[in-house]
């Protein structure tokens, strides 16, 4: 089969490295000076070295173009595509960062789908490297993958699969343009909102796995689409339910309103009495239907609230609906008094819309958390006892099973590495932006990304039960927290309900005695309708929920809503040094010596486990870039490596003896700043300066925090001069500290914290989630910026997973804006109610106007809450 053949020529993923035989790694590579170009497909900056680039001309490309031409040759019957040698020429000047991109480019081009690039440039997306995607093997067995296959009438099948790698219209268009090029595939429909794809195909001629293989070549990964999809599907169902009832309510309200208009018109111009009676009854019917069907939920929740004895917003609403309905029925029956069915129907509609908006807001914040942690569709390669492999969904893994994790793949479960070593990206859970190295025996966290090479691991817990699952549960729970402001709103809301009911009885009694029952009904209904504590009750939880959801999107995990409120008022912020202001481990600060020597040094230090060795290797890797480093390090031959404890390490490279270390004094562990010298054949060739380096942008981040009115203090356990250095650097940068203490024990930190907070302001502690646990827990708000997230979150309610201290100013802004928004909503709501209730009681507001105003006020307040600038949008990847 054609596809299979091409795939064999264009290996993807980790196997790519292996196809570069040592012969092609010729030493004369360095003769060409590298130039930087942009990848024609993904736009990634890439290095070009003479003819050995992934430019066109290499054999693999020729095969690729040949294949694509054949494809297009077949497709040309369709009339929509064209083959052409001109394409080859055109793309001959293009460069690519990898074979994947090149393959995708030539394929897209040959299929005549160049529009993709034009469309993509329209959509203003930031370019990012196209990931190396391989077709998910789990799709070979659809039943095991839990994919539901619907047989269609005409012998075709329909499946819905999840797609990864969708960005914009161009991706949509590309995927949907593909079916004619793949025999047996009838149609492909992308759904951007939940990143899924519906395929209709002929099962006798193709299979979803073949489609997945095909799409993988364009950089899209297909997988099972949340098979049980717990949250997504119930939310989808609820949303349909909401729409359903809004549609019904709208229909009833609109018709009732026309009838209402006819009646008003009839009143002023004269109308036959039988017509009037008819219109009244039709209106009554519509209004009744509206209260009975779409309005049912209000009665239900009012009834529940009465039974449980907790007053709820829906009690006055339901009472108003009830009084209005009865009054209007009597009115319609006797032909006297007013009929409010139009108002009732529109009231129900607007209430329903308000409910939907509220649901939407909650759903959205829920979605962002669920989306972020998509674990339902992670898949794993399970290693069986007999040595065979099969692909399973991560959630079906059992503890004790062994799993293979390839490079570029998400770790499918919590577990222990049983063979191989690699680097993992674990920032979301450790706050450490640098990759974490793992070797045999190290534990790995499900959800982290395997960056460099294949490892095998033994499963301990699935992701849901594991650490990531735990965190997401906490965050989810936090959104339902009753923070002080929410509690206040609840209390006020409860009192409010009783006050309104009392006022309603008063109004009804007063007006029925003085002006008769028709007037009394009218004014009571006005009062009950227009009084709306919902804004009061909804605003606070909504703001908090939305803020927590948006924070989670930025990898700021908030475990409790209270702390978000507390951060609103500036107070005192105490910072730990190690790991917070600095990186917290040894790194190379400075290297003076030839760059090429770094390779030999790294090669020797790879043999050592010493922290200094790790720092040097990391430095070498960062100097050359991981890819180049990995490629070149293997060709360095090293022998006779010998470590001398406390002094350094020897090794022979290319016949020269290299010594890295200290000749005179042994390296001391406690020393935070130290020097390491490199000797080649007895000649000093270069010098490393090592230390715990200060985090970048530290001064500017702290200045931003100070500009928001916060006082800053450093409380460190480290008694090195670095504490003072940082303080000096800060004051040079214009950031003054209230206090700066080094060498504190945890108890002393607590004591200092107590002294500093005595002024009554909020005391915030920012630190390492593990080492500063005590201080974090004792502070009013603990913010952990590092450490295993779930441990840190036990002590600190807030964990910053990305961007470190730089995220704090945003967090502070979000908090202040959230609390301000809540206050604004409260004020608006109370003012509105005081004003309108007074007017309604004295009879200045007609029920119809009340019905319009009530939801408008509610929605206004909800919009105010929703649009509160908590975490204003930065560039977001997914729409």
């Amino acid at each position, binding site marked *: 089969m054609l596809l299979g053949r091409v795939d064999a020529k264009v290996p993807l993923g980790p196997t790519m490295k292996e196809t570069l035989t040592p012969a092609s790694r010729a030493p004369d590579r360095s003769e060409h000076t590298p130039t930087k170009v942009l990848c024609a497909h993904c736009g990634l900056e890439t290095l070009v070295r003479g003819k050995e680039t992934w430019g066109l001309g290499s054999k693999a490309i020729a095969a690729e173009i040949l294949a694509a031409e054949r494809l297009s040759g*077949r*497709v040309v*019957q*369709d009339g*929509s595509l064209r083959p052409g040698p001109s394409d080859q020429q055109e793309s001959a000047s293009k460069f690519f960062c990898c074979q994947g991109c090149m393959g995708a480019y030539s394929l897209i081009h040959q299929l005549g789908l160049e*529009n993709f690039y034009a*469309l993509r440039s*329209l959509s203003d997306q930031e370019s990012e490297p196209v990931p190396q995607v391989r077709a998910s093997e789990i799709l070979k067995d659809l039943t095991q993958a839990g994919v539901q296959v619907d047989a269609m009438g005409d012998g075709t099948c329909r499946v819905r699969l999840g797609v990864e790698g969708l960005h*914009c*219209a161009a991706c*949509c*268009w590309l995927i*949907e*343009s*593909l*079916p*004619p*090029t793949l*025999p047996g595939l*009838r*149609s*492909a429909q*992308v*759904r*951007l*909102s*939940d990143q899924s794809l519906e395929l*209709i195909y002929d099962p006798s*001629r193709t299979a979803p796995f073949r489609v997945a293989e095909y799409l993988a070549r364009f950089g899209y990964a297909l997988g099972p689409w949340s098979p049980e999809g717990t949250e997504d599907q119930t939310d*989808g169902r609820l*949303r*349909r339910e909401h*729409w*359903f009832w809004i*549609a*019904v309510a709208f*229909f009833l309200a*609109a*018709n009732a309103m026309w009838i209402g208009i006819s009646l008003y018109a009839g009143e002023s111009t004269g109308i*036959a009495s039988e*017509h009037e009676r*008819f*219109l009244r009854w*039709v209106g009554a019917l*519509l209004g009744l239907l509206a209260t009975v069907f779409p309005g049912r939920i209000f009665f239900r929740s009012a009834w529940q609230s009465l039974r449980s004895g907790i007053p709820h917003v829906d009690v006055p609403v339901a009472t108003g609906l009830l009084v209005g309905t009865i009054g209007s029925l009597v009115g319609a029956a006797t032909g006297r008094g007013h009929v409010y069915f139009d108002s009732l129907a529109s009231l129900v509609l607007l209430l329903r819309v308000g409910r939907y908006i509220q649901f939407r807001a909650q759903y959205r914040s829920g979605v962002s958390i669920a989306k972020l942690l998509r674990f339902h569709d992670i898949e794993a390669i399970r290693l069986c006892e007999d040595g065979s492999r099969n692909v399973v969904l991560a959630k079906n893994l059992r503890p004790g099973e062994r799993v293979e994790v390839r490079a570029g793949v998400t770790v499918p479960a919590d577990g222990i590495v049983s063979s191989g070593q690699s680097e993992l990206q674990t920032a979301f859970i450790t706050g450490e932006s640098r990759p974490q190295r793992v070797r045999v025996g190290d534990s790995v966290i499900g959800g982290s990304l395997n960056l460099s090479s294949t490892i095998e691991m033994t499963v301990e817990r699935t992701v849901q039960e594991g650490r990531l699952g735990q965190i997401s549960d906490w965050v989810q729970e936090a959104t339902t927290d009753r923070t002080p402001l929410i509690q206040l709103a609840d209390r006020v809301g409860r009192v409010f309900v009783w006050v309104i009911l009392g006022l309603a009885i008063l109004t009804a009694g007063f007006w029925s005695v003085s002006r008769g029952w028709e007037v009394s009904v009218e004014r009571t209904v006005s009062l009950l309708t227009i009084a709306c504590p919902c804004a009061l009750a909804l605003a606070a939880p909504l703001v908090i929920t939305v803020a927590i959801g948006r924070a989670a999107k930025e990898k700021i995990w908030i475990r409790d809503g209270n702390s978000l409120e507390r951060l609103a008022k500036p107070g005192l912020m105490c910072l730990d040094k190690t790991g917070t202001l600095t990186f917290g481990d040894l790194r190379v600060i400075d290297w003076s010596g030839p760059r090429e020597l770094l390779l030999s040094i790294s090669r020797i230090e790879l043999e050592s486990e010493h922290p200094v060795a790790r720092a040097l290797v990391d430095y070498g890797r960062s100097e050359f870039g991981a890819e180049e480093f990995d490629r070149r390090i293997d060709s360095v031959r090293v022998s006779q490596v010998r470590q001398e404890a406390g002094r350094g390490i020897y090794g022979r490279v290319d016949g020269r003896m290299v010594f890295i270390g200290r000749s005179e004094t042994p390296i001391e562990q406690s020393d935070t700043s130290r020097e390491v010298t490199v000797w080649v054949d007895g000649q000093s060739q270069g010098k490393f300066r090592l230390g715990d380096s200060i985090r970048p942008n530290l001064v500017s981040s702290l200045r931003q925090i100070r500009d928001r009115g916060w006082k800053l203090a450093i409380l460190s356990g480290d008694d090195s001069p670095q504490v003072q250095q940082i303080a000096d650097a800060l004051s040079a940068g214009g950031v003054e500290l209230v206090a700066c203490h080094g060498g504190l024990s945890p108890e002393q930190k607590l004591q200092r914290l107590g002294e500093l907070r005595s002024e009554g302001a909020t005391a915030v502690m920012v630190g390492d989630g593990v080492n500063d646990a005590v201080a974090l827990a004792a502070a009013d708000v603990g913010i952990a910026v590092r450490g295993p997230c779930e441990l840190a979150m036990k002590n600190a309610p807030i964990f910053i997973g990305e961007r470190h201290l730089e995220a704090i100013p945003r967090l502070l802004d979000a908090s202040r804006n959230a609390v301000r928004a809540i206050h604004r909503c409260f004020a608006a709501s109370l003012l509105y109610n005081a004003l309108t209730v007074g007017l309604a009681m004295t009879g200045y507001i007609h029920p119809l106007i009340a019905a319009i105003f009530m939801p408008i006020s509610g929605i206004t307040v909800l919009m105010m809450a929703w649009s509160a600038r908590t975490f204003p949008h930065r560039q977001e990847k997914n*729409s």
Partner: protein
Amino acid sequence: MSVLFIALPLAILLGAAGLFACLYCIRSGQYDDLDSESYRILVDQQPGKSESPEVQE
């Protein structure tokens, strides 16, 4: 004016037909994705739709 007695129920019935069509659309999930369509309109033509003749192997 007595045409009102026929016209009004008729109008409401017609409206109800529209309502039921809408309810059917909601139930069948047509409104589930409102994001892709707004993009799709930017694209001129879609050769990949099922009505295009299928390529023979």
